[in-house]
């Protein structure tokens, strides 16, 4: 039970740390000042959620590891985030599509998690649910603006939505760890959220006059530590300080 719970919480923590890091990459070079603030703010929310989740995971594991140990001292294969969140910022449309797909999933996910039998997860979820509502609204507005905008913005929005679509199926996968958590009354049945997610996505795409993408296949593996080539590069930046100067404190 506690090993499954550790892995379950760690996955959620990794999702949010990695996405927060990706969003932070926009700091100082987003398309406008308002967007710079927006992406940094969303990244901060993700980072805050990750910190609470890592602290919770460390407590469950009971080996004395804190949020920093878990964030900075694990190698790539021990990271169990979904592949979607590690995908790079090829352009602004990619960042928006990634956020839109993820937030449309996290909103119902946190809403369910807010009824979890685990006190820590319930508390984290209650706060995160309200924050994600903002993230979803922000990214959905941009999907519409770009998708129904100029020829160039539309082309880029379509490309991002289509290319990232193969990573969305992984969000709904239920393996033994996730199933065990659902049967304990702690976790969320992600597979049951797929219809709601699809309705959210299709509704926004219809408003943007975009066709809903279909995945030829689902790419997954992140939950078992099999990542795309992008995660290693991200971690090399994220973990640089602790790798170069082990134990360094501010």
């Amino acid at each position, binding site marked *: 039970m506690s090993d499954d719970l550790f892995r379950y919480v760690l996955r959620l923590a990794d999702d949010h740390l990695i996405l927060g890091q990706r969003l932070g990459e926009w700091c100082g070079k987003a398309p406008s000042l308002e967007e710079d*603030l927006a992406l940094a703010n969303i990244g901060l929310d993700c980072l*805050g959620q990750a910190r609470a989740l890592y602290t919770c995971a460390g407590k469950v594991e009971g080996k004395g590891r804190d949020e920093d140990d878990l964030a900075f001292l694990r190698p790539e294969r021990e990271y169990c985030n979904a592949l979607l969140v590690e995908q790079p910022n090829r352009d602004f449309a990619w960042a928006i599509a990634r956020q839109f797909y993820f937030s449309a999933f996290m909103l119902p996910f946190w809403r369910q998690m807010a009824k979890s039998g685990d006190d820590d997860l319930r508390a984290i979820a209650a706060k995160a649910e309200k924050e994600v509502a*903002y993230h979803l609204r922000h990214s959905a507005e941009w999907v519409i603006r770009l998708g129904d905008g100029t020829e160039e913005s539309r082309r880029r929005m379509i490309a991002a939505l289509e290319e990232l679509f193969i990573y969305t199926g992984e969000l709904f996968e239920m393996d033994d760890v996730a199933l065990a958590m659902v049967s304990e009354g702690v976790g969320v049945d992600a597979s049951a959220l797929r219809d709601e997610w699809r309705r959210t996505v299709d509704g926004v795409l219809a408003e943007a006059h975009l066709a809903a993408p279909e995945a030829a296949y689902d790419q997954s593996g992140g939950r078992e530590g099999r990542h795309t080539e992008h995660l290693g590069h991200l971690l090399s930046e994220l973990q640089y300080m602790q790798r170069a100067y082990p134990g360094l404190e501010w």
Partner: protein
Amino acid sequence: MGVVVADALNPSNVRSRRAWEVAAAVPDPEIPVVTLADLGILRSVECDDDGAVIARVTPTYSGCPATQLIEQMVLEELKRDGFDNVRVESVMSPAWTTDWITAEGREKLRDFGIAPPVKASNSIRALFGETAVNCPLCGSEDTERISEFGSTPCKALYRCRTCLEPFDYFKCL
């Protein structure tokens, strides 16, 4: 709230009340016109029989960088006031909501030029249905949102179409 009601016959309750007053007066580091009590961040202050003080604070937004600083400020202020044995704990549940900002806190925000949260609600549906935000400077309802995200995690950027001034809006959460 969790503060022990002061009882003149019970010295530890007098200390509790004093400790509450000290912690409650700590200003928010980002918006110094409001205190922790105004924002509803300070959840309880307890003083046990050994004289140890436990102050409980709740984070506002998950990613609010001021959270750690706030805990440190509470610790320092209580120590400065003579409480030697102080512990500051962070409580996540129940989750903070803008409903906990006091009426006085809302007025202080408005006087400072920040529009307080429009409707008191912790329902996420209210977030999507947010309506008119009154300009804190001229009171006009004719305002528009420039950006959902502002200078701190708790604020959005607005502009008044009547007096043309830009202003911060404290978001509903």
